[in-house]
């Protein structure tokens, strides 16, 4: 038992060191395109985990994530853009004071973005969390749409439909992976705490949870606001990665993408969300050929715009219909299970056999 624990600690430490080494390598030597995709992976992991807290762990079917991301993205962007750029972009209606002169360090701007999103989340929580199931889903979706419409119309703060351009590219792999790791650690700690158990109890059976003395409104709000906070930070990272944002970006489609990640990874598994964030993001890139034409030399395979999205929505339905628990179900990643898995056993078997053949065996 103790030996196993030690082994796991070593494995974890080695993995973290490898990851750090990889980030260093990627930042310095890898193609910008790949680095960008990796950044998106980490950001989607953050968004997936934060949605999973609300939907997977607390059982609240919230569809308002795009709205949260929008608040975070706009806040962080406005706080990090240089005043000169702001003046240039807001040529129709000038940006209100004091936002036009404000300029914060990136981490501080992210934090403010997250906190402001959490505040918005807490304001939405009071009315919507009294609702259940579908009603909650449609009300949260409604709030996200309202946020989007408001952002389209408040020219003097958001620059309306034109959106923000020239957002400084401050997001790098250290920030995105660092934030993802921070999110994972905090949320893991949360779900394993007494509060986390209370959230799971609410998911399992609200009436029983309430009969056990759990204040439903309070705990649902805590989960919702925490999810909003991390979604806001994720949004902030995304805005400062892409360089441009506009209200159209934060439509229901975006929430849908995150939902796909959560469902594919497993509702109620944070590590599942991370794994599926990588899969979905890379698949999204590598399936680009579906939208474009490929020249096979003798024959041009005509791609169709939108084909990728067809594949994606079909995947979501396929997962829900035939593979409801996703990659990880409600379990978290663990070395014990990985090492005990069939694939790994076989690999170990092969490895040992080769060692024997080579005569290295003691």
């Amino acid at each position, binding site marked *: 038992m103790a030996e196993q624990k030690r082994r796991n600690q070593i494995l974890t430490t080695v993995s973290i060191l490898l990851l750090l080494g990889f980030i260093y390598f990627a930042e310095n030597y890898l193609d910008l395109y790949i680095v960008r995709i990796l950044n998106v992976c980490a950001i989607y992991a953050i968004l997936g985990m934060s949605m999973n807290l609300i939907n997977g762990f607390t059982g609240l079917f919230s569809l308002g994530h795009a709205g949260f991301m929008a608040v975070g993205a706009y806040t962080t962007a406005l706080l990090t853009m240089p005043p000169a750029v702001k003046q240039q972009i807001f040529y129709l209606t000038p940006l209100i004071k004091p936002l036009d002169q404000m300029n914060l360090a990136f981490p501080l701007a992210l934090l403010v973005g997250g906190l402001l999103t959490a505040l918005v989340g807490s304001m939405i929580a009071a009315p*919507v969390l009294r609702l259940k199931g579908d009603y909650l889903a449609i009300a949260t979706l*409604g709030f996200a749409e309202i946020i989007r419409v408001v952002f389209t119309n408040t020219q003097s703060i958001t620059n309306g439909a034109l959106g923000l351009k020239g957002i400084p590219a401050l997001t790098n792999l250290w920030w995105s992976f660092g934030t993802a790791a921070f999110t994972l650690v905090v949320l893991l700690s949360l779900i394993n705490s007494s509060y986390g158990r209370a959230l799971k109890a609410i998911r399992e059976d609200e009436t029983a949870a309430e009969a056990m003395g759990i204040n439903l409104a309070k705990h649902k709000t805590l989960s919702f606001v925490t999810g909003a906070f991390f979604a806001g930070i994720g949004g902030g990272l995304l805005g400062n990665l892409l360089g441009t944002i506009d209200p159209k970006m934060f439509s229901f489609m975006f929430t849908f993408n995150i939902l796909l990640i959560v469902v594919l990874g497993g509702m109620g598994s944070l590590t599942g969300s991370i794994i599926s964030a990588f899969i979905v993001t890379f698949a999204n890139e590598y399936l680009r050929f579906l939208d474009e034409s490929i020249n096979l030399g003798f024959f041009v395979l005509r791609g169709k715009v*939108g*084909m990728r999205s067809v594949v994606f929505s079909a995947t979501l*339905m396929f997962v829900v*219909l035939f593979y409801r628990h996703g990659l990880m179900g409600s379990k978290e990643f663990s070395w014990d299970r990985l090492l005990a898995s069939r694939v790994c056993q076989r690999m170990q078997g092969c490895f040992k056999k080769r060692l024997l053949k080579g005569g290295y065996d003691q």
Partner: protein
Amino acid sequence: MTLDLFLQHLSNGISLGSLYALIAIGYTMVYGILRLINFAHGDIFMMATYFAFFGIVTFRIPWFITFPLVLVLTAGLGMGVETVAYRPLREAPKISLLISAIGASFFLENLTIVLFGGVPKPFPAPKLFTDVVQVGAVSIQKLTFYIPIVTVIALLGLMYLINKTKTGMAMRAVSMDHETARVMGININRTISFTFGLGSFLAAVGGIMWGMKFPQIQPLMGVIPGLKCFIAAVIGGIGNIGGAVIGGFILGIGEIMLVAFLPDLTGYRDAFAFVLLILILMSKPTGILGEKTAEKV
């Protein structure tokens, strides 16, 4: 604002409300029978307009043959969606069903983009309907009068079907309790399928008239009306057909009047429905005609 102008807005509101009502009924019936927001309903409505487009423009079939064909095809599409996306999930948790519904919705939208392109197409409205008539000082499309009339006829037909026929009785029974209905010898799957067909049929009626009123069709045209009509159903009291109609009119007339009286808020037009939804949910979550149900503990 002159009386003439007001009347013009009102007639616009009534015809928009009629369209909302027709689509909202589909949501409310499906919700009544499956307790599910059929997210794909707005897209089924969109498909109906494409069917009409291909019938008239591509295949040059006269409109009076195309339109009935469209109704049948759309009803079939609705039943198909139910069979593929919802039927396998009867015993699954509700959240799976809802996700499948969202998946089906996006699938239809994207499939339409792939097959028919994302560029808007002009809807081939027969001249008969789009002619303009002069009423007093204002000129109004004939369509504005036809829409409420067709809606009323469709509603009367629906009422007859639900209240007087055996199938209607089966639908009502299934929406009360699946198990009991099954014990009574009702074929649950067939009844649910029929409900989807009927809802989609009405959405197609709405879709054709929508296409004539706003003669530009595109793959994402069903999203916003779809959401709004679900909201209309919630406002009226979900599961209640009369409620869906009332909700549809409140939303349609309210939207037009908002823009007419408070032009500054035009940009917020699409948020109106959501604000209304949240107000209703906070004050009377079961909607105007909904009944309070106590949860069994």
